[in-house]
């Protein structure tokens, strides 16, 4: 097929075929990335994402893995392209960036973009991001008390390198390997990113060979326009007005002061804007949320509430949406703020937008859930080698107008799997997992109840084990909506010689042999009033152990529950 077909002349069937091909290619990149990764955080938890971008860095197709990681693709890309123009790139070059103050999120998420050339012309990029297990920093795994971003690990400022020259035994690879604790795994994960980028590159080149680079470019443009039209159509259906929502992070890990997040959501015709004015100032601990994370969180809330899930999430989705947050606030911090635990404030931004929208589209929102990234690290130095176990936990999902919240599932901005008990126990000898199950009664109640949280229990098998956690919802409960009650909060504690040591949501502690570490995750809030709950559902919940009979009688009344 000849080159140079303009957008307006794009054959509708060509469009259907090529656009599906691009989406399939992005998905394939995601599968490769996860399957060939080394660290458990990528291969078991799937904490990684992949996308194809056009020449200007607009995401056109993505593997839907982690919502939070895909928002900032364009921003991290542009920071690189501003310094090293696209026009100067050679085959084999790549952009790399993890700088939270240049479009990135936290340092662990490293973005890599590889240019795709077709007959010498650069027509797009394949990009991946993976959460790296350890990038140096103050402590193995995570540094709860980091004073600034430098204490959190290795920064890749927006840069351009060449794979053959600088990686693959070259100077960049050696520099990175020398500054991290588990180089075999981390470098292996970087290699998985490069391999996935190469797959995306091949697939796009094959499409270009068949349909011509011109058609491919036209299809990329139309994919963006398509998503934009769909979002605009959805926005037109929402009544104009400004709606307010507010939520808060428990505390900053030092004082007990909640960190308040405020959102004003304005719908006007077919556009929507979110302003986080009134949000608290940035803090000295790692709870600051880089602006690109704030944008991702808000976009996810808007997309999942207002549009159906068949709209491809790409740069076109963002066009009718604008997001602002005051410079120097928790949601748009200044350098050198530590940002490792940015998801907690990111979730509150999500919740604040959700609460604002509850006022205008109550049938489309859900109640608050665990809505927290609970990250725990249990590490140990053995014979000069660090053993770092990192795991991310979900909890109960918020109830919706139609169904109960899902039990024990990862929260909306993320989609990390747990690591199998057997995989963990085979990999680490400084602890053993001795319990993992649902926590009855932890849901909020209502016409529909929230999802249950769960517990994890570890037996510590060695002395000098380092435990660190960042989490939230230890102090402020997941909220119910429209009469639904709040979900139960999270909790973490250690049993030592018959004593109970409470651990705070952002904390670290040295553990000893014989300790039992317990983590309880939060339950989801209820939706609608408890009077509307179907008696049969209550009976079923009691029968299957989700609800104790005592709690059921207290909440729903003895006459409804029965004996």
């Amino acid at each position, binding site marked *: 097929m000849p080159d140079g077909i303009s957008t307006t002349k794009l054959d509708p069937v060509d469009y259907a075929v090529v656009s599906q091909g691009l989406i399939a290619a992005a998905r394939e990149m995601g599968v490769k990335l996860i399957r060939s990764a*080394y660290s458990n955080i990528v291969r078991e938890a799937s904490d990684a994402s992949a996308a194809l971008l056009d020449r200007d860095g607009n995401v056109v197709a993505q593997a839907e893995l982690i919502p939070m990681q895909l928002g900032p693709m364009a921003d991290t890309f542009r920071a690189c392209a501003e310094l090293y123009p696209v026009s100067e790139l050679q085959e084999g070059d790549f952009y790399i960036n993890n700088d939270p103050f240049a479009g990135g999120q936290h340092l662990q998420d490293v973005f890599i973009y590889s240019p795709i050339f077709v007959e010498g012309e650069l027509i797009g990029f394949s990009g991946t991001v993976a959460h790296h297990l350890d990038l140096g920093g103050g402590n193995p795994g995570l540094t709860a008390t980091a004073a600034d971003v430098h204490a959190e690990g290795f920064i890749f400022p927006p840069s351009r390198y060449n794979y053959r020259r600088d990686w693959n035994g070259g100077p960049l690879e050696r520099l990175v390997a020398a500054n991290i604790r588990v180089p075999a795994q981390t470098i292996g994960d970087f290699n998985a990113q490069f391999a996935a980028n190469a797959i995306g590159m091949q697939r796009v080149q094959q499409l270009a060979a068949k349909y011509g680079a011109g058609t491919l470019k036209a299809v990329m443009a139309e994919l963006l326009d398509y998503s934009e039209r769909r979002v605009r159509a959805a926005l037109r259906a929402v009544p104009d007005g400004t709606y307010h929502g507010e939520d808060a992070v428990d505390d900053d890990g030092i004082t007990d002061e909640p960190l308040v997040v405020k959102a004003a959501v304005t719908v006007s015709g077919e556009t929507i804007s979110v302003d986080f004015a009134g949000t608290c100032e940035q803090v000295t601990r790692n709870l600051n949320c880089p602006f690109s994370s704030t944008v991702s969180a808000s976009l996810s809330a808007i997309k999942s509430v207002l549009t159906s899930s068949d709209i491809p999430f790409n740069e076109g989705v963002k066009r009718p949406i604008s997001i602002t947050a005051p410079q120097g606030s928790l949601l748009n911090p200044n350098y050198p703020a530590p940002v490792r635990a940015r998801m907690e404030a990111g979730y509150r931004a999500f919740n604040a937008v959700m609460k604002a929208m509850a006022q205008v589209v109550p049938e489309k929102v859900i109640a608050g859930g665990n809505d927290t990234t609970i990250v725990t690290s249990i590490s140990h130095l053995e014979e000069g080698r660090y053993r770092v176990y990192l795991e991310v936990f979900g909890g109960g999902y918020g109830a919706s107008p139609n169904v109960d919240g899902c039990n024990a599932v990862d929260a909306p901005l993320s989609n990390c799997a747990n690591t199998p008990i057997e995989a963990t126990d085979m990999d680490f000898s400084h602890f053993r997992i001795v319990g993992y199950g649902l926590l009855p009664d932890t849901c909020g109640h209502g016409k529909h109840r929230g999802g249950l949280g769960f517990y994890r229990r570890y037996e510590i098998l060695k002395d000098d084990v380092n435990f660190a956690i960042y989490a939230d919802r230890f102090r402020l409960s997941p909220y119910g909506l429209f009469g639904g009650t709040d979900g139960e909060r999270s909790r973490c504690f250690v049993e030592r010689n018959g004593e109970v040591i409470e651990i705070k949501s952002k904390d670290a502690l040295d553990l000893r042999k014989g300790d039992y570490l317990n983590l309880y995750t939060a339950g989801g809030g209820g939706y609608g009033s408890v009077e509307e709950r179907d008696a049969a559902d209550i009976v079923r919940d009691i029968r299957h152990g989700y609800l104790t009979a005592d709690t059921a009688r207290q909440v729903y009344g003895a006459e409804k529950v029965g004996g």
Partner: protein
Amino acid sequence: MTERAVSLGIDIGGTFTDVVCVTGDGPKIFKVPSSRSNPNLAVTEALRRLQEEHGVAPQSIGRFVHGTTVATNAILERKGASVGLIMTEGFRDVIEIGRQMRHEMYDLKLKPQTPTWLAPGVRRVEVRERIAADGQVVVPIDPDSIRSAVETLVEQDVEAIAVCLLFSFLDASHERVVRDYIQEAYPDLPVSLSSEVDPAFREYERCLVTAFDSYVKPVVDRYLGDMEATLESLDIPAPLQLMQSRGGLAVSSVARKRPVRMFLSGPAAGVIGGLSEAAEAGIDGIITVDVGGTSTDVALVNGGAPLVRSETQIAGYAVRVPMVDIETLGAGGGSICWLDSAGGLRVGPQSAGSEPGPACYGRGGSEPTVTDASIVLGYVDPARFAGGRVRLYPERAAEAIQERIAGPMGLSVEQAALGIHRIANAQISEGVRLVSLNRGLDPREYTLVPLGGAGALHAVPVAEELGVERVLVPRFPGVLCAGGLLSAPIEHEISAAYPVPFEKADPLAIRTFLDGLDRQAEELMKAEFIGSLPVQQSYAADVCYVGQSTGIEVPFDPGAPEMLKRLYEAFEETHTRIYGHASGAPAKFVNLRCVQRAQLAAPSLSDRGQRNGALADRTLRKVRFQDWPDAVEAHVVDRDGLAVGDRLDGPAVIEQPDSTTLLPPGWQARVLDSRALLIERRDAT
């Protein structure tokens, strides 16, 4: 040939049951309607017709091979047993929590993401015991806890029990103690042990497949018991053999022990059928494309045996059942064509099914399907569809396409129909890329083998799209699943976890471990009636780098010199092929596997010496092809009348009762000795 030489393959599908019976005077091939409520009915009906219409006496049937969807349907229709689940203390909810992931990224209204219905809370109990990651017993199993756990389940009237204890893949003794207790106390209660169903790590995945095994066990048991009784009452001397999802056969007494392995055996049989046709034509390296009503199955076969993967999708859940590596796409003949909200043309994954069916069926379906497009384009003759047994309404097909697609898009009905085919073919091509490029293999070096009623309509356009040079159309593509039953080997596979790094591995210890697996496989083979048939043994290891956990299957010869070195090199080669890189880093074993296979002589499905002269009888019909602005006059040929050696140039349409082959301009078809059609680019012939 002796009277006993009759071989019978019966494959039960959703709508029709395919029957292929090979006798001394050629194959008898027909379909009977399936009955969902009593699948046995189709079998007795097939046997009746064989005797009455084809003169095949039940007593003469020497082989009886069966493919059944009974296990799959039990799950899809949620008609399995009430299962009780026994887990290690502290871990009863593993099956509900699963991997804590959501299926849909931006869907807020989440239903349970795991199949909690298999064993809801009240039917999940714990026993006090614990085995550590190194196989050491940390907590010995407590008999009192077994008793109370089992009593709790019995009070819930469970019909089957699944047992999944942590690290049972390293030490199965605790699970066996639980089974011994149940068998003693409740001998009629079937028990599935995770250490037998799937002895590999990852507790949720192992628990899930074990629970599914329990869920279908009583259903499969009843079904096979009934069928064995039917065969006995009819004096059929053949043992009942069943197709397994790995693509091998097992005698019914063995298949009943691991019923979960009967999932999705139909698609596996199709791949085996394609393989057998290709072998008969002297072709190695094929990609089968099985176009059904709602979906298309694509598989790549290299070197005589299909690839097997360790996991499959059942009712939307990933279940660890070894299965012929098939990609299933949501596009088939009945797939609905629609415009998305931006006016983009889409095909599937919704399907019109068999009720109401495509618009041209005239049963009230108003949405256009791929089959409707085939009618509009002249690919399918409405008068001869399905051998003329189904009446079609071509005007309804055109109306539906005009109203829903062509009108809104501003295209002619024919242009829209061509677009529908292009999109369906692009989706099928995508599936072909997944099974080939995804594994580092070039599809252009393979031959496409279409199966299913509609496979041969799409195969050549798909070959064109991919740059594939050859397409082999089997003699009876529409009933190839049933044919595949007769050419599949008897096969038993035993695998077990072997978590040992290469640096600590000892070839002698590996040999000893494999000997144990061999003995188990031999035990199963003993139940087969194979007489003096030779048994082939092969071995494979799942290997990954230390730090990874997704193993890659690498075949190896345990007796070879420098075995570990060779195996490591083979692993790195495979890793490079699949993932594009290898690191030279230390590797470890995940599982070891032994496969024993006995290949029966496959009866030929070719029907030599029937009538010829179809080329002389050909007619002309207006047909539309991709990249041709107008309809062209294509030859229409009756496949049943083609003789060995006949050649035909496209444009042509080759018709037969179970299928239609589309031969676009630029391609030539040739009838091989086996009476399969080999289609090649004309410039290549």
